[in-house]
């Protein structure tokens, strides 16, 4: 499961759609659309400033969401990555009703696994993707293994997006083996993957990867962007 994170409607709707199409035609299995939120506490400087810039130039979360329905995603799965307040503000049940046919899942960095029930209890039907991090305890991993969502998001580094990850570290492969012992779900590595070498290494230890920061850096230049996303596969 190889995927790319794209900041929705950044720098503008047209450029965003070009980048989106580039990811689809390159043949990725999934796309994560970032819906801008003004307080991106789990994001590093590159994504945080792209989001600030988008909001500053008038990008609306509501427009990004409305636009999801018009994207031609081919065979790829679509996920939304955003912060809890965006969904809360939209209306938890309403969001689910409006997008359950479009989205395969939702990644919310400020909703920990134990609070997924807060959404499901209010009638949310789109799967929330569980996280495993370097801090996760065995009991956390066991719980994540049986949660909804068609993959587990494995965060390979301590910290926020844009850090660098040591994909050869034994800690990472041990962790992934530990998760595999409890689940048949796919394990997708996020955070810190920036080039083909990293991507290949990630696929050796996990079942997939998602690239964020390194791609967002190029989002303003759709030609370069297109080359970059092809180069990773």
């Amino acid at each position, binding site marked *: 499961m190889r995927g790319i994170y794209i900041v929705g409607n950044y720098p503008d709707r047209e450029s965003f759609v070009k980048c989106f199409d580039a990811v689809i035609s390159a043949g990725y299995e999934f796309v994560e659309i970032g819906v801008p939120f003004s307080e991106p*506490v789990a994001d590093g400087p590159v994504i945080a400033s792209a989001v600030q810039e988008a909001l500053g130039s008038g990008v609306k979360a509501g427009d990004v969401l409305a636009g999801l329905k018009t994207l031609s995603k081919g065979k790829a799965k679509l996920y939304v990555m955003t912060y*809890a307040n965006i969904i809360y503000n939209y209306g938890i049940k309403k969001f689910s009703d409006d997008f359950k046919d479009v989205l395969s899942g939702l990644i919310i960095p*400020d909703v*920990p*696994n*134990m609070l997924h029930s807060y959404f499901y209890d209010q009638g949310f039907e789109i799967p929330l993707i569980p*996280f495993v991090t370097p*801090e996760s305890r065995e009991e956390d991993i066991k719980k994540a293994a049986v949660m909804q969502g068609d993959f587990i998001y494995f*965060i390979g580094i301590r910290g926020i997006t844009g850090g660098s990850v040591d994909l050869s570290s034994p800690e990472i492969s041990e962790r992934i083996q530990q998760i595999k012992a409890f689940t048949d779900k796919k394990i997708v590595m996020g955070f810190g993957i920036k080039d083909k070498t990293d991507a290949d290494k990630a696929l050796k230890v996990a079942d997939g990867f998602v690239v964020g920061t390194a791609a967002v850096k190029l989002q303003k230049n759709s030609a370069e962007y297109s080359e970059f996303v092809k180069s990773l596969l």
Partner: protein
Amino acid sequence: MKGFFGDFGGMFVPETLVPALEQLEREFNMLKDDPEFKKDLARYSTTYIGRPSPVYYASRMSEEYGVEIYLKREDLNHTGSHKINNTIAQALLTRYMGKKRIIAETGAGQHGVATATVAALFGLDCTVYMGAVDAARQKPNVDRMKLLGAKLELVHDGSKTLKDATNAAMRDWVKNVEDTHYIIGSVIGPHPFPEMVAHFQSVIGREARASFKEMGFLPDAVVACVGGGSNAIGIFKGFLDTSCELYGIEAGGLSDNEGDHAMAIGKGRAGILHGCVTYLVQTADGQVADVHSIAAGLDYPGIGPEHSYLHGTGRVTYDKVRDEDAVFAFRELARREGIVPAVESSHAIAYVLKNKDKFKGRKVLINLSGRGDKDSERDI
């Protein structure tokens, strides 16, 4: 659900922080009634902070306004505000948890100074995040933090105020959670912070209640300013079970227009920020809106979740005071009583002065959450 006050609260944080928050919850629940911990905390409270703080009858103001005005003197605490009550307690907790580094966010700088102070006291490494705009308007506190040996990280994101400092501190915590404790400075953030900080600040209300008991009567009303709401919850806890009217005063800023005020309850609606569901000043699109207050410590788009809950129950009345009225009260208390209040606390005082007809002849207790040395250099 755990960590909720009715519909508000929770633990909306990155998964990475969950083990640390659960550890904190466990240690807090264990230590808060532990005789050793309580003895330690009591000793630092008396010998270091200078507690108990007195309740002072402001006779000249009272005569002028026709209201019996009592002030709970948190301004007399070491470091100049109520913030030290919480930081000493959390620094002790940090020591019990075996962590070596503390971080904090600060708006007015009072919480930053209080955190830098306890770091020096306990030999902990300390980093304080502060918005660049706040650092410029609270320079005396910036200098104090440096003098105390804290690393100061100026934040240039967003509105360069308290919410941005909080974002930066959260990011630091996510990266360094193994050896770092984040001393949140108000009754905000993920569970267990709102409950824990309220517990450590409830000493204000307990002491005030004891002072009134000695005087042989209760106040008719208790008034406190609300940024995140820690000084307000702290004093309210002493009177929730009485018939006293309780008032929490938000920063009305310049006007009711978006960007001109910081009224989370007055002009906001429920949302999720910095770890909890609570009232939030936000745009129609769900973005956190810019807020403004002349008081850096009130310049925050959210409010503690317990306040959102208390608003819903009607037990506490939330209202506003504008910048100019706070400045008037700031000067008025200085001239009539020889006390320079923090511009944050001046909001609570101003509410009573502005509503003197409502409070006529009644006994009103105002929480003087801090002193105004930090503000007296400013042109207000």
